[in-house]
């Protein structure tokens, strides 16, 4: 186990943790930026095709990461349509991949929460003279603690994911190596206790993030 403590104290490990958090938080912010308005919009506005979109958002909860990784790889590769961006094997590509995976989760959970609130308070909100779209900020404020869970679910999907970022990030030491790809690598080197130790660190970080988010969320409630 001494290898575990040496690893934990190294600069390389700090970079890995910082990159994991940086990539996954950025992806979560992107996913919230798209998923929050999208989910709320699907809850309050009725238009042809809405049901299909809701079904789609829920179906994409099961989006396989490795497929997302492969699709993005083909898009971002030099011989692909977005190759000129030079994004393949960079942290940016990993943010994109995790955002694609987290957005449906955020959208589906936001839709569920706001649809319930809309059913309950929609009448009252509209009596106040607000159009359905105008009611969205109200609904979001009302449901903020439950919406926090949507954000955390998105973050959870992002930080725990390995299949997509391995393909588009390449697990490059010191550049695109994250907690999960490092765990996969140590497992493949047969360093099982080190891999498991890193796994516990990852779980600890997730708990810390979740606790912080809840503390902030209840702070905004008073």
């Amino acid at each position: 186990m001494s290898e575990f403590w040496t690893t934990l104290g190294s600069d390389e490990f700090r970079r890995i943790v910082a990159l994991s958090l940086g990539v996954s938080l950025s992806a979560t912010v992107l996913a919230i930026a798209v998923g929050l308005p999208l989910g709320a919009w699907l809850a309050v506005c009725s238009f042809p095709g809405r049901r299909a979109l809701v079904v789609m958002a829920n179906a994409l909860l099961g989006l396989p990461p490795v497929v997302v990784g492969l699709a993005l790889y083909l898009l971002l590769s030099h011989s692909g349509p977005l190759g000129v961006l030079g994004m393949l094997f960079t942290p940016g590509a990993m943010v994109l991949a995790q955002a694609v995976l987290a957005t449906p989760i955020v959208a589906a959970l936001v839709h569920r929460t706001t649809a319930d609130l809309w059913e309950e308070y929609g009448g009252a909100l509209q009596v106040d003279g607000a159009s359905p779209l105008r009611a969205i900020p109200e609904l979001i404020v009302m449901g903020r603690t439950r919406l926090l869970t949507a954000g955390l679910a998105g973050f959870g999907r992002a930080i725990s994911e390995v299949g997509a970022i391995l393909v588009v990030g390449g697990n490059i030491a010191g550049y695109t190596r994250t907690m999960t790809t490092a765990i996969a690598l140590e497992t493949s080197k047969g360093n099982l206790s080190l891999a498991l130790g890193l796994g516990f660190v990852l779980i600890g970080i997730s708990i810390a993030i979740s606790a912080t988010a809840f503390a902030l969320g209840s702070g905004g409630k008073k």
Partner: protein
Amino acid sequence: MKTFTRRLGLAAGLALLALSSAAANAQSIVLASTTSVQDSGLLNHLLPAFTASTGIQVRVVAQGTGQALATAARGDADLVLVHDPEAEAKFIREGHGTDPRQIAWNDFIIVGPSSDPAKVVGTHDALAALKAIAAAKAPFVSRGDKSGTDALEKRLWRAAGRQPSLAEGDQWYRDIGGGMGAALNAAAGMNAYTLSDRGTWLSFGNKQSLKIAVEGDKGLLNRYDVILMDPKKHPEAKHDAALKLRDWLISDVGQSAIGAYRVHGEVLFNPSARAPK
């Protein structure tokens, strides 16, 4: 709502800061390499010295040889370091790569459980050993991932005159579709034989009851070649920086650095740019 948006903004700002600091560095090239030179620690040993003397960062994407060559053929790498002569010849024939140079060699070994059901431990004839494993129906783990090691394994079976397949009822032949480490983990877990490069084996940490069964066969030679991208087909590759790394690897400094790398006191890679095997 306002505080919420502000917090969101703060989080985004912090995240981007973390990213930009990670992304901020000088000139860099992508080296598509086979997993063994990375997993055995060779590249970690070599590349800091190269970066210190040239300022060029090397980003290593370690994959099986087949996948590494495919990555490069798509134009997503600046240099390749692989170990499958047949796949390399095809890569060059198709115009993707040019001017291959051997930088080092070592050997493959067949590892197996200490119970040794096929009675091959301590022998030196790979083909005879494979025949014995097949005859004993002893579990054998195959990479099945088109890596250099996988390609050699398939060639050895062909040479042994017996291509095992599940379709023909060879339940003992287990194609795991994974890297060398995954194959060694699987072999350790199933008390199976498998073909491994010596570098990965020596630095592998989960051997359990596995030990070296067959070594020292001339057919188990393992050559590592570095190949430049052909500028005609891949003008996007960073040729100048890639050439610097290639030239450093075959230089006296690079070659002696390769020879100086040891794990548990053993030399893993024999430098061979001067006298290719």
